[in-house]
């Protein structure tokens, strides 16, 4: 098993009371859908947000869909709706 670090951006960090979370992953990785499920189980307060399609996944600075596979060492982050300007 190796460790995957997942960053929670914006209000997600407040909801989970953590800016980053680590989880164990097997060598063949996890899908983003699995990561969302893991986060929902670990942080019940995050469930509604993390399972919403308004919260997007980012891997190595690219937005990906829920089928994307992530492995240890990749930069994974979840983005709530963006708000610039």
């Amino acid at each position, binding site marked *: 098993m190796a460790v995957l670090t997942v960053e929670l951006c*914006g*209000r997600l960090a*407040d909801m989970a009371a953590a800016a980053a979370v680590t989880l164990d992953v097997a060598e063949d990785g996890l899908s983003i859908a699995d990561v969302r499920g893991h986060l929902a189980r670990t942080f019940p307060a995050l469930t509604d947000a993390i399972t919403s399609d308004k919260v997007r996944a980012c891997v190595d*600075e690219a937005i990906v869909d829920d089928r994307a596979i992530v492995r240890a060492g990749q*930069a994974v982050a979840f983005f*709530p709706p*963006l*708000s*610039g*300007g």
Partner: protein
Amino acid sequence: MAVVLATEPINPAILLAEAETQSNGAGALASFTGLARRAGKDGDTITALVLEHYRGLTLASMQAIAAAATARFALAHAHITHRSGRVLPGEAIVFVAATAPHRAAALDAVAYMMDRLKTEAVFWKYEETAGGKRWIEPTETDHARVTAWSL
């Protein structure tokens, strides 16, 4: 094209003067400066607006917006400077400028860049008040404005 992610206070007057030097003989220069408010929607006092960004993706999202405006409105020059970090009331959050041969394109380009920055630039922001944090997300109006540009 000048696109800057600033983590310290910015001076819109200096940025406007810089944009003017980049006019390349174009006849129109339009700009917009967004300032941090002193009062929230409920009238409560805001002590600061705090913006968070994400690695290189934030600057890349700003560059994509400036490039799209340059192509769409045939700009001579596009400028976006956006703050990240803690912005005090009255300080600038964002400065956008466009130079074009005529005013309509310059004015439209500034509105276009601002509308897209609101919903597509990779930032998250919250207001700091005596009662705590209040996360700010785009409104229905913000989404409608950006959708209107793609119609």
